[in-house]
């Protein structure tokens, strides 16, 4: 039954993998050094090349050679070997990594195809284990035959082995293995078969909806603006450029004068907004083109992307928390953003830039209506108390104490005001630098600079004092919580709404906190710690918080079900 002939020596993938390794090096550099430093470096290099164009060709060639060399080396040192009961992967040039994956630990084998691979008829095999093997468990650019062979081999092995992977989470939705065929079908992944064949398709994102999704996600503008400010030296050049464009545009459109200037400003702002929206819509299309969500056995899977189809698989029992987010624009469209993180994946880090987030450990539905959210919720909570609310407008939510308004207002004043005042200090610094050409002495400069800063700060402090109470009130309106016998949900926000919900038995720890204000009024804040962030309920009765805490740790301690 076991074909031993190909169990032999070490194999390399095809040389096409070089391109993939180049891409991966670039990406790991991007991940390691972050968006900011990337932008700074890009702007710096561009500025250098603008001033010294003679080096352009040299630098480009050097970069190309370095990338090719790195990719080539990584390709040469990447070997894998399929044995009877395991697959061995060796990789790394300097830091060598050895991964041995026993077949019984493999939960699924996904087959992904990038654009290059699609042209050449190759695939990337991604081995899905319960652990966190993201980059190590991959075979880039191999022939589909190898994927096929691996799938049958693993299916045979798991079919033969009496102790198929332990599944203590015996939900009522257990799918029994139907022999080797079923096993192979369960294992085999994306590139080979369509989601419809693999499970129950819950959601497909239509193109019109995709457009709305792009429109609903602004937020890149600040990044570009801040990146520009960071590279202080180049600001003058950019400002000059913008002012120059502005003058020529206003001259061309309406001649000199107030009307012309106003028109030009409007045009400029409009152009910027259109450009921004186009970027957002474009990135949404690249990332979420043909987003498909389906349920396969006991896991949710999603596939999306224009160039590279990205597949995410999250086992229902591994979900630690459910988070539903509705920004103002989402609210306008009546849609929600749902994410269900598993252990170790932090939600807060990639809340806003899920364009860069590449972890397969979080199930994300970027654009869902209420019915779909409810469906996913009851799928994840199946067998537990399904009344747990996760839609922000759920009537089961209860408000917290009105004293929360005071606390939120005070926090607004004491946190945001100093922050903005410090930020204004640096802004004033930039403004004063542009006067340096004048005949002011350095002392005068310092004086004017501090004066401007003080004025602007004073205005901001006055403004924020006015804003504090409305902000506190809005936050209080958004703050609510509810719990069932099995879980707790908390809602918060300012204009938008976010709901975080978790099951009691997934709690990692429970904290009851009390500030002086809360102690005076017999209130407390309850924090339920999960493996991927907290669910916080502030300003509830202290006695109630303690009772709830005792109940939650009782549930966590007495639970015999696997929680991850």
């Amino acid at each position, binding site marked *: 039954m076991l074909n031993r002939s190909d169990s032999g020596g070490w194999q390399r993938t095809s040389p096409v993998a070089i391109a993939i390794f180049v891409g991966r090096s670039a990406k790991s550099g991007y991940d390691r050094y972050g968006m900011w430093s990337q932008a700074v470096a890009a702007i710096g290099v561009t500025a250098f090349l603008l001033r010294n164009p003679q080096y352009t060709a040299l630098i480009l060639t050097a970069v190309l050679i370095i990338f090719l060399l790195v990719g080539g080396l990584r390709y040469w040192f990447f070997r894998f070997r399929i044995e009877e009961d395991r697959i061995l992967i060796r990789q790394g040039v300097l830091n060598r990594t050895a991964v041995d994956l026993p077949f019984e630990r493999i939960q699924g084998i996904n087959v992904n195809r990038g654009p290059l691979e699609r042209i050449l008829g190759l695939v990337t095999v991604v081995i899905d284990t319960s652990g966190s093997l993201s980059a190590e468990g991959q075979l880039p650019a191999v022939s589909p035959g190898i994927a096929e062979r691996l799938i049958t081999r693993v299916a045979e092995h798991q079919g033969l082995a009496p102790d198929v992977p332990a599944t203590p989470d015996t939900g*009522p939705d257990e799918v029994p293995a139907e022999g080797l065929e079923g096993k192979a079908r369960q294992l085999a992944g994306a590139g080979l078969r369509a989601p419809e064949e693999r499970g129950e398709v819950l959601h497909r994102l239509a193109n019109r909806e995709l457009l709305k999704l792009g429109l609903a996600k602004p937020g890149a503008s600040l990044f570009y603006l801040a990146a520009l400010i960071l590279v202080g030296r180049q600001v003058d050049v950019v400002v000059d450029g913008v002012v120059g464009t502005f003058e020529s545009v206003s001259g061309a459109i309406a001649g000199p004068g107030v009307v012309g200037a106003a028109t030009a400003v409007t045009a400029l702002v409009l152009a910027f907004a259109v450009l921004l929206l186009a970027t957002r819509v474009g990135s949404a299309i690249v990332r979420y083109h043909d987003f498909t969500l389906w349920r396969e056995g006991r896991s949710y899977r999603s596939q999306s992307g224009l160039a590279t189809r990205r597949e995410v698989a999250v086992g229902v029992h591994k979900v630690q928390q459910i988070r539903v987010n509705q920004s103002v624009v989402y609210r306008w469209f009546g849609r929600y953003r749902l994410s269900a993180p598993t252990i170790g994946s932090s939600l807060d880090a990639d809340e806003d830039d899920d364009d860069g987030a590449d972890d397969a450990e979080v199930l994300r539905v970027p654009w869902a209506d209420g019915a779909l959210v409810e469906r996913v919720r009851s799928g994840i909570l199946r067998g537990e108390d399904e009344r747990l609310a996760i839609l922000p407008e759920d009537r089961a939510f209860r408000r917290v104490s009105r004293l929360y308004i005071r606390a939120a207002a005070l926090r607004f004043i004491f946190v945001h005001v100093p922050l903005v005042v410090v930020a204004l200090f640096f802004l004033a610094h930039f403004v004063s630098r542009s006067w340096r050409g004048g005949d002011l002495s350095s002392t005068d400069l310092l004086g004017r600079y501090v004066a401007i800063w003080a004025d602007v700060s004073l205005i901001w402090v006055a403004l924020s004092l006015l804003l504090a109470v409305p902000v506190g009130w809005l936050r209080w309106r958004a703050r609510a919580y509810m719990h069932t*016998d099995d879980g707790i949900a908390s809602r918060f926000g300012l204009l938008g709404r976010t709901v975080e919900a978790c099951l009691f038995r997934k*709690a*990692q720890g429970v904290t009851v906190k009390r500030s002086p204000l809360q102690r005076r009024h017999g209130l407390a804040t309850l924090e339920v710690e999960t493996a991927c*962030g907290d669910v916080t309920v502030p300003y509830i009765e202290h006695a109630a918080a303690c009772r709830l805490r005792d109940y939650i740790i009782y549930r966590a301690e*007495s639970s015999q079900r696997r929680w991850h």
Partner: protein
Amino acid sequence: MTDSISPETEETGMFVNPAVPLDSLPGTESLEWTPLHPRFARRLQVAALIRSVVIAGAGAAFHLLVIARIPPITENLPWLPAFGWTVIGTFCLWSILWPAVAVPRRGYVVRDKDLLYKSGVLWRSVKAFPFNRVQHTKLDSTPLDRRFGLASLSVFPAGAGAGQRVRGLGQETAERLRVYISERIEHDGDAEPGDEDAARVPEVNSEKDSEVTGNPGQ
């Protein structure tokens, strides 16, 4: 808000969840909190003192070598050094005095199935960590800790950034707690489905009490 806690019997596969009268849940109000080691406050104060000396030295060097040599500052902002020294002095004094206030308010309880830790003077918190969610524990002590015969015990549940470090335990207590918690973690691994409502009698901290008060450490 308390009306909806009403655990019911439910059956989900192999998991059986018996009804629990809410009042019978072990509460956390009537607990005997174990204080930290009596010498811990002194240890923090010594550390603060050392830190203060270093900061004061660095501040003095900065004052004499940098600030005093920049004419625009000495002429226009003559109050700046005094202001700086006031801030530094307040900070150092506060950091030396504060442990005497804060440490007595910290405490912990080890029960059969969880560890509780309380802290905070103005903003108070009580944290609870069930042992069957703890992934691993860590015992560590700095050279200064060892001079005072102290050690810190950390418990790490799954997930990043969580967990609790209990500082200021006697070395012996810390080691005993570590062994106890490790046993609990292992015990949880092969727990039978039936023993879920095994007695959760709050741990009697007799040996820890005696250790904290009686053992002089080294």
